[in-house]
């Protein structure tokens, strides 16, 4: 028992220590030299010792003695003392007397002789240690000779404990010693089985066994239930050294799949500590069960080669591609985790089985992509339009646009048209440019809406026909819309290119901005949205500037701001003598601003301090933002401008009154909010569904409250669906978010907007097709050897690099790829119909 306890004393570090110390440390006087009497009296119960009896030092026994001496230290680590017993000449006792006995070594436990070893079985340290431990661990290490024996052992173990089955070509070898040493440590945990029979090796599933090398299998019998089936086995791939076995057993002991809910960069498992990679299977709540099965499958495949962890994306904020499903962490310091998109578990296994293949696979994938690219070239995928606007316009080109309402302006009539009409809206466009044409389509709808409106003429100038006008009117971009008022400077339209927005802009700019109101009644009517009549049909917030006759400075700034905001904002101003009556009514003192939202039901007063025009514009824009707006495609930019996180309630249709009330409370509660509280109606803004899909892969149950920080980190959080949407719940949730206690559901991709497809590489085509083309002369190469031709974007420089004469010859010689340059010409010949010389 004590021997076993002793065994347990030995720890990993101890093992490592002795493993490394064996070869270096010699016999440091650990070999005791005792008389037989001394020896036998020193034997302690349970303590093993190896004794060698010698009468006098015979020359033949000298090398053996050296080995014994050398093994003394190793054996001491296992609590086995090594003793040289000097027999007195006269001693004729059992061990000293017989000449025969002197050629042997004796292993005692206590005073019980366990085994006697002929000296030729103890030829070196390995054999000494192996044989001694083998003898001592008789129960822990079963020796089997037949398959039946093995199966018996295995069956007996099923459901109880695991088995370590080792084959060594011969006993007394280094491998044998390693197995025995491992058995010394793990013998109570796993059943060790040893054989030297090569036939068993074959039967254990190794088809072409290399009988000359040792072999170790870990048989997972503990979980095995089926008696008819052998236990699952995991072979150890490495050479049988004590360290490797230890490592293998450690790995077998580790959990098959580790569940991870923290940053994978911080995760560490035994695999990483032992220098093995760790594979993460990225899981989502929705696919958890399947992912778990996948992980286990992969884990079995990779047992002993890599660890497998199941990483729940829902719990961890991962700043990675949504498509990524596997991650690989290597034990090397400083190597970032690789996130991969793999399609097959085989790929995961190959990924690990040969670490070198990690790169290779990726390269292969790239190659494949390249090949795909090549294919694409042949399929003319590059030729396929992937610009939604251009494609939409081309598909619409055969439809004749209803342009009758829109006056065509030319160099001849441009000036006269502008002078004839009170207000002329001019669309400057280019007839070949897609965005212009898209706007032209909306413009026809505007023309339809405004049909019959007095005093507004819609017109257009095609800058492709009349570049002179466009240059003169300083139109540098297509499209541009300008509104020319007779006798005033023109106004450039700077709003959304949409029918509604443009119509409202044109209508609103018919009214002076700011509009001078002359009576109190007018001012009141204005605040109610009833005056002026032209604007009454447009929902808007009215702004009224109140000025006393003295405050001309603020009034001028207000007027200037009005001219900037003209068309976007309804602004009025009142500076009659009785302005004080109004200011008293709304409890403000001039100069002040009255803000009438939703038809004058609520009027807010804002004092106007000394402000620059731009400040005033900024202030007015800000004041016009809703407190709890419905976000739409059209108004999002105005809120984006605030550069604050968004708290959005996604709703299918209108939001419920309760939610609306709570959200409004929340939004109003803190006027200087650090976020934009808003809601989104999926019926009105269906693209919101796309947003949700990007966040959660599927649309979650609605309504759903989302916190998304668009401007920093891009983390998306989902308000727990089980909690009800109340101000207090939201606030406490936001507190938790702030404290970092919540895990983001998703993170917005940080990807740059790269070119969607490669371009035709004409430079390479030219060089391939016309190798003699002196694109850069040999001269340049000779003179500037260090100067490489700069890398072309998106291309493979190696290919493009001017080949030397030899490699060029090779290129010409080798068929296939390099002949492609000539292919276009041939291909082009075949497609003669496309050549315009033939019509």
């Amino acid at each position: 028992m004590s021997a076993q306890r002793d065994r347990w004393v030995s720890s990993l570090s101890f093992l490592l220590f002795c493993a490394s110390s064996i070869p270096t440390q010699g016999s440091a006087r650990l070999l005791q030299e005792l008389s037989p009497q001394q020896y036998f009296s020193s034997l302690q119960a349970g303590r093993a010792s190896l004794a060698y009896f010698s009468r006098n030092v015979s020359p033949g026994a000298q090398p053996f003695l050296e080995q014994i001496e050398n093994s003394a230290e190793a054996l001491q680590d296992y609590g086995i003392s090594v003793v040289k017993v000097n027999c007195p000449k006269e001693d004729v006792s059992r061990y000293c007397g017989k000449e025969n006995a002197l050629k042997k070594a004796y292993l005692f436990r206590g005073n019980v002789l366990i085994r006697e070893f002929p000296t030729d079985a103890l030829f070196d340290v390995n054999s000494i240690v192996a044989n001694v431990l083998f003898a001592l661990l008789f129960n822990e290490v079963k020796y089997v000779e037949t398959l039946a024996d093995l199966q018996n052992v295995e069956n007996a173990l099923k459901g109880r404990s695991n088995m370590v089955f080792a084959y060594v070509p011969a006993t007394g070898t280094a491998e044998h010693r390693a197995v025995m040493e491992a058995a010394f440590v793990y013998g109570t945990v796993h059943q060790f089985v040893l054989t030297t029979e090569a036939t068993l090796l074959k039967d254990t599933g190794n088809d072409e066994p290399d009988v000359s090398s040792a072999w170790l299998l870990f048989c997972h019998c503990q979980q095995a239930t089926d008696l008819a089936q052998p236990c699952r086995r995991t072979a150890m791939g490495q050479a049988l050294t004590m360290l490797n076995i230890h490592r293998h057993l450690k790995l077998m002991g580790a959990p098959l799949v580790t569940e991870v809910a923290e940053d994978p960069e911080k995760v560490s498992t035994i695999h990483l500590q032992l220098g093995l990679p760790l594979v993460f299977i990225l899981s989502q709540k929705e696919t958890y069960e399947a992912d778990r099965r996948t992980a286990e499958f992969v884990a079995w495949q990779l047992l002993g080669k890599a660890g497998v962890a199941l990483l729940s994306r829902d719990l961890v904020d991962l700043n990675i591609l949504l498509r990524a499903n596997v991650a690989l962490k290597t034990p090397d310091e400083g190597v970032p985790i690789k996130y991969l998109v793999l399609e097959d578990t085989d790929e995961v296994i190959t990924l690990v089985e040969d670490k070198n293949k990690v790169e290779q696979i990726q390269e292969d994938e790239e190659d494949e992509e390249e090949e795909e690219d090549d294919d694409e070239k042949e399929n003319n995928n590059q030729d396929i339009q992937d610009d939604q606007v251009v494609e939409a316009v081309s598909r619409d080109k055969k439809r004749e646009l209803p342009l009758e309402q829109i006056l065509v302006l030319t160099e001849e009539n441009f000036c006269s048209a502008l002078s004839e009409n009170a207000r002329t809206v001019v669309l400057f466009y280019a007839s070949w440019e897609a965005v212009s044409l898209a706007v032209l389509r909306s413009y026809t709808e505007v023309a339809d809406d405004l049909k019959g409106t007095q005093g507004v003429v819609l017109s257009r100038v095609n800058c492709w026909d009349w570049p002179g006008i466009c240059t003169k009117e300083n139109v540098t971009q297509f499209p541009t819309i300008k509104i020319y008022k007779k006798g005033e400077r023109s106004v450039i339209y700077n709003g959304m290119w949409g029918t509604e927005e443009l119509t409202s802009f044109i209508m609103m700019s018919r009214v002076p901005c700011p509009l001078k109101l002359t009576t109190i009644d007018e001012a009141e009517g204005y605040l109610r949205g009833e005056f002026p009549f032209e604007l009454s049909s447009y929902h808007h917030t009215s702004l009224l500037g109140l000025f006393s006759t003295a405050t001309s400075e603020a009034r001028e700034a207000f007027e200037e701001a009005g001219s900037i905001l003209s068309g976007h904002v309804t602004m009025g101003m009142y500076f009659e003598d009785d302005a004080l009556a109004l200011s008293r009514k709304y409890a403000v003192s001039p100069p002040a601003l009255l803000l009438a939202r939703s038809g004058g039901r609520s009027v807010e007063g804002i004092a106007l301090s000394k402000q620059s025009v731009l400040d005033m514009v900024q202030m007015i824009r800000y004041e016009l933002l809703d407190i709890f707006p419905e976000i739409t495609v059209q108004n999002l930019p105005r809120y984006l401008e605030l550069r604050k996180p968004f708290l959005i309630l996604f709703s299918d249709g209108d939001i419920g009154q309760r939610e609306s009330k709570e959200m409004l409370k929340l939004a109003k509660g803190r006027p200087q909010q650090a976020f934009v509280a808003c809601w989104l109606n999926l019926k009105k803004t269906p693209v919101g569904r796309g947003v949700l899909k990007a966040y959660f892969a599927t649309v979650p149950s609605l309504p759903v409250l989302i916190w998304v920080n668009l401007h920093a980190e891009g983390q998306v959080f989902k308000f727990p669906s089980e909690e009800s949407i109340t101000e207090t719940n939201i606030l406490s949730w936001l507190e938790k978010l702030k404290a970092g206690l919540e895990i983001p559901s998703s993170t917005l991709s940080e990807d740059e907007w790269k070119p969607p497809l490669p371009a035709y590489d004409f430079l390479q085509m030219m060089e391939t097709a016309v190798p003699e083309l002196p694109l850069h002369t040999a001269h340049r190469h000779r003179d500037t050897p260090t100067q490489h031709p700069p890398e072309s974007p998106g291309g493979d420089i190696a290919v493009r690099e001017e080949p030397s004469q030899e490699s060029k010859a090779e290129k010409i010689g080798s068929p296939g790829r390099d002949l492609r340059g000539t292919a276009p010409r041939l291909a082009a010949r075949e497609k003669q119909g496309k050549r315009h010389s033939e019509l």
Partner: protein
Amino acid sequence: LGLALYASSLCVVSGAAFLYHDYCIIGAGPSGLQAAYFLQQAGRDYVVFERSHAPGSFFALYPRHRKLISINKRYTGKSNAEFNLRHDWNSLLSHDRRLLFRRYSRDFFPDADAMVRYLEDFASLLKLRVQYNTAIVHVTLERDEQAWNGHYFLLTDQDRQNYKCSSLLVATGTWVPNVVNFPGSEYVEGYETVSINPEDFAGQTVLILGRGNSAFETAENILGVTNFIHMVSRSRVRLSWATHYVGDLRAINNGLLDTYQLKSLDGLLEGNLEDLAIIKDKKGKLHITLRFYLENRNISAGIESITLPQDELDNFATRAPYDRVIRCLGWKFDFSIYNRSLRVMPGKGNKKKYPQIKPSYESRGTRGLFVLGTASHSVDFRKSAGGFIHGFRYTTRAVHRLLENRHHGVPWPSTVYPITQLTNSIIKRVNEASGLYQMFSVLADIILLRENATAFEYLEEYPVGVLAELEMQTGRKAPNGLFVIIMEYGRNFSGADKDVFYYNRAVGEAQHAWQSNFLHPVIYYYKRLPTEREMRLRPPDWPLPRPDAIHHIVEDFLTDWTAPNAHILPLRRFLENCLGTDLRNFFAESCFLFAFTRQKLPPFCQQGYVRMQGLVGSEGLRRHAVEAGLLEDYTLTDFSGDRPPDSHEGSQDQLLRDHAIPVRPLQHLVNAKDE
């Protein structure tokens, strides 16, 4: 007489009191007037000296038969004034729409008198400062550290009046007739004086020396009345439709080729004129012999003793005697008025009729002396149009812009655009720009990228030969890479002996655009400005050194490069790959989606939608985009899954490729394996 003497001496005495101008232009021909126009527009101090009493004196005499060979195309079917200049070879550049040549002549090949009238109007309507009847007879330098170029130009006219200028623009053209001297050349009549009345040639046999347009024009005039015409010159005939060089023999003049090849007695011969000799016999007939025979002859012997080639070779081609020999050998630059210190040197080889200048049109010998117009043709001789009105009107503007930057700190005009306008600005220019089109391979538009490629600066019609000096010459900076937009014919397509009508000469597909033969736009991309060394070592026939990437827009039969898929799409892909960004346009709805699902936005959304100028698009257009699989319709996908309902081409669904694709479950693979 005494008074005259006195007056002239006064001038000499007061010679120190020079009349000073910042710019002096010699010659009030088309290029001189063109330069004057730009200087006047810029408000510069300039004067034009013209030896004649009216502008364009060359055209008052030449061409002798009065038919200009520059095209006056009055209709193109387009109203774009810039585009129409591509087919107007006679107008000068100005803001005045009255000064378009089509208002001066209805002829496709107008009469030279129309040109004289036009130039007169150009000078007078624009009130250009031209000093007529002033022939500059001498030009010298006066060193002065203070001067713009380290020296002043001192000009002396025929009346010994002196003028002092900081910058000298030489627009004298090439007006000195080329002559060859050989024994008997005194019997040769010159093109400049020969009769243009066909009746004078009735029943005569004529030999014409030279093979240019003036020679053929002369032949054309008398073709119908002569016995036969022979034409001799050193080089074979170069047809302009084969060389696409407008200075070579134009089809309008080539009637003699017809009669030669159609066995009507006329003929062409090749031979070196300097080996020739002409002998006049007693009847006044002119015989062709070789200088070689004359050198060997006995001086004392009479005319009968001279060996004629036919004495030895009795089928010698030009053995028939001629009634007249006419010299039509073209003109050269007048080098005589320049002091040697100016080092105005003739060019080499076939450019010896032109003074040596740099690609910036500045003289190689003297800083501040610029050569304009026909005399500046050495830059693109036999290549582009720099020797003709329709070419040098642009190079003159380029020189003016260089001068504005050099002397007045006015940088080369440029426009800054957001990067979203990159494709558009190129397409616009390659479709309408006349300077790029006429001065192909010589003038190029330059796009200078701003940092991070969010914006760019567009410079028009810069002389590409001095690309390396761009920053110094334009006052613009190019630290972030540049595009050069230029127009080119296919290399090896045309030439004097090339068949330019071979079958399948035109390329129709964008992917083979680099093999385009007809004039087409080419865009070079450089990550940094090429150095002078790289410019010098560029491959022959290449206007520019090897770029980092190149794009050809496929040649177009209509020279209309606005096709969305064949022209614009490949260009966009090229630009995208050079800049490493996505230049597609997006509807506001897509930008909305990106704003909520990506931390970064494509330039179109960034510069449009985010600034409240999103492209909402009409319902119909969005439906088209959905049908094309380029826009997802979320109102429908609610119940029909992720796929757009009508996405017949799944591969096109690239836009949303990166979005909303759930983690690909691996379990089906596992299950398959377990089985």
